[in-house]
């Protein structure tokens, strides 16, 4: 039940983010971080998982 709630909260949050008219970038995370650093902006990354990590 708790796990379901966690998943639901996460998916709901992602839906909220999507509904913002895409105020975010998708993919190419290292270039994204380099750009944020160059602009002097803090950054948030939401990462699922991949085969090479974990």
């Amino acid at each position, binding site marked *: 039940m*708790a*796990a379901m*709630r*966690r*998943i639901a*909260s*996460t998916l*709901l*949050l*992602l*839906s*909220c*983010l999507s*509904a*913002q*008219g895409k*105020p*975010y*970038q*998708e*993919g190419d*995370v*290292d270039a*994204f*971080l*380099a*750009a*944020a*650093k160059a*602009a*002097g*902006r*803090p*950054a*948030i*990354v*939401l*990462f*699922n*998982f*991949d*085969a090479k*990590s*974990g």
Partner: protein
Amino acid sequence: MLLPSQQLADLSERFSICLSGKTSPANCDVRYRQLYWLMVFNKQGELQHACRLGDELGKVTKQGFDVPNAFIEIVEDAIKKPASLQQMQRDYVAAGGSTKAFAALNQKVKDLQGVGQMHTAEFLAKVADKAKDPVLSRARGLMVEADACSHQVINHGAYKHLRTGIGAFVQAHPDHAMAGELLTPLLEVGMKYSFDVAGKCRSYAQQWANNDATAAHKKIADRLLKRGEQVVAKTKKELGEMKPSDYGYLRSLAVCGDAKATLAKLESTKTFGVFRPIHKEWRAEAQAKLAGSK
């Protein structure tokens, strides 16, 4: 609730946001696969905080926040953290690898829920020569690497890398206090998915106690042999209490080096995912052992 919220719009004004999909940022290796990790980077591009997003949202929404506000709370708390991982690494170098600086670095990795732990292990090895005790810094790197390995998805290559690293460390520094301590992660992590642990220990012992071996080499080789025998005896006892269908039964057969039983069990076991290279290795080593005993 699904409509755009002013809070999230405001947040995106202050923070760049990236949904990175299935690629983690460089040097941000994760422990275990989770449905979404949140990573927060400061304006210098350094990792300030990381957490399993679902767990954190669960905690904060229980305090009465809705999901968008809970997310903002999490991000606001994260960016206020006193230091980034990279800052703690710089502090470690500046302090000459002091015990205090190492403890602080370890605590930061713990606060990050293990994100960047493998990177930190590599860092400790890389900056070893800048520490007052370079050998100790290398040993710490191996300990951190072992902890990372033991808290991630089973990874054949990572275990092998750890075994190689510890083996080389003990060979080079048999009389260092950490050499004895590293036997535990060598056995419990590095050899957790090894076929014939006693045989592996004999192989390391032979390497360490070769022609130009010192008394320290021989002493630590003996320690490893004894520890290896203990692991096998314990695993045999556990096997006696298990059913063949139990999880871990095949691994236990392999650890004990029972070639015939391991091969028979492999025949009736479906191999998938992370176990493919491990089962392949067990099969090859069990066949070689049987062939050698004929």
